């Protein structure tokens, strides 16, 4: 089935086959980037980049992805410089951008904005994060990272067979919830490591093979996914102070890890991973940020119809 015209709004809409397709096409883009092959498949195409709230990695990597494919970009990164300031609705802004461009990327503070954008637009819409709701391309690049950075496996993917440890704020962390949902499509088991106040909600644990602890014990993990613990999540500052140093990845923690384990983080990090472990080959969070580009290249090429069944048109 062609993805031409498809909106990418929520990870919940992805089937197992969809995930494999994104992994395969992202790998193709990684190869092309590695070879330095100049691409012009989206030459003459325009991407509207509508950032109703600030973002660094998502915006830059979408822009890099579009430009790597030979396309161009219009849009705004600060709604104060757009007609939002005059009171225009999101829906109207989208309709206008839809008339001007071939694909729309939207980041918005209000949950549900991406679905409304898809309903308002005549061209495909990719959700670059809508408030507390969804950020599907982050989840997809996380999967691509595991697929690329874990040792080759005889299973259908390198993700199968992994024990994934999630560390930090598992209660409110959107990236953690989405990735956990996506990983249910693979043969994975989980370890949820969080303080009691920030435990993984039941609905994500249901139907999975998991263990839960508040001890940072990672010797059996294949993938360690670290998130930031935010001060504002705690009713009492003293609770935050007590816990903030508990889940820090430092050299001692790295020494406990398996040789082929990987450490991921959606970034930005504050204190939860010491910069002294950055040079450890198992610390892949900057590679993870890089994979945002080929993953988004694959998605842009797929929804605009430039990439079908792994072949660039």
């Amino acid at each position, binding site marked *: 089935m062609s993805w031409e015209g498809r909106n990418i709004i929520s990870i919940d809409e992805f089937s197992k086959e969809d995930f494999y397709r994104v992994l395969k096409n992202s790998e193709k883009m990684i190869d092309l980037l590695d070879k330095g092959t100049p691409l012009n498949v989206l030459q003459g195409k325009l991407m509207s980049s509508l950032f109703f709230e600030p973002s660094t990695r998502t915006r830059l990597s979408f822009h890099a992805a579009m430009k790597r494919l030979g396309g161009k970009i219009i849009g705004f990164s600060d709604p104060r410089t757009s007609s939002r300031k005059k009171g225009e609705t*999101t*829906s109207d802004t989208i309709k206008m951008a839809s008339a001007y461009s071939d694909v729309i990327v939207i980041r*918005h503070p*209000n*949950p549900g*904005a991406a679905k*409304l954008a898809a309903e308002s637009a005549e061209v495909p819409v990719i959700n670059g994060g809508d408030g*507390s709701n*969804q950020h599907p391309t982050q989840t997809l690049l996380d999967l691509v990272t595991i697929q690329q950075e874990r040792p080759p496996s005889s299973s259908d993917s390198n993700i199968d067979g992994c024990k994934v440890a999630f560390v930090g704020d598992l209660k409110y962390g959107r990236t953690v919830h989405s990735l956990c949902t996506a990983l249910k499509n693979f043969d994975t088991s989980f370890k949820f490591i969080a303080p009691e106040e920030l435990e993984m909600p039941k609905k994500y644990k249901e139907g999975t093979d998991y263990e839960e602890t508040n001890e940072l014990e990672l010797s059996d993990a294949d993938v360690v996914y670290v998130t930031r613990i935010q001060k504002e999540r705690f009713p009492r500052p003293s609770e935050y102070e007590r816990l903030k140093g508990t889940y820090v990845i430092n050299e001692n923690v790295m020494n406990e890890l398996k040789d082929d384990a990987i450490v991921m983080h959606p970034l930005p990090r504050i204190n939860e991973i010491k910069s002294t472990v950055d040079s450890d080959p198992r610390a892949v969070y900057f590679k993870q940020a890089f994979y945002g580009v080929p993953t988004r290249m694959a998605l842009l090429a797929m929804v605009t119809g430039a990439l079908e069944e792994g072949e660039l048109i």
Partner: protein
Amino acid sequence: MMLVRHIRNGTVVDHIKAGKGPGVMKLVKGDTEDPVVLAMNVSSTRHGKKDILKLENVYLDEDTLDLVSLLAPNATVNLIKEGEVEEKRKVKLPSEIKGVLKCFNPKCITNQEREPAEPEFKVLKNPVRLKCKYCGEVFAEKFFKNVQKP
């Protein structure tokens, strides 16, 4: 045995789980000025105790019956005309609800001024919860038990 007079024209919502009657009343009563009677903790052979709601000269539309089913999934609704039961039906929990309830998440795009997004929910069962199709939030009964008919 408590006696409440029969209504001649209107609707009787029966077999409401005991205690849920006030919520159902708030939901369906609208701005009627005709008599509305809520009987609570009435003995029932089937349910032990139940609540019954009688609304004179009020007939409930399908959207409202969908809302009733959220609070009282086992309720039966009798439409009374000229003192006779013209139709007796069970409410049915819909799989989705569209356009009749606002999303309970104030940040949801459907609650932003002038945005043309009609609130839409997927109905989750056991227990009944509503999942907003826009913002993705899931709402338990405590959110919708006090809603009023829009």
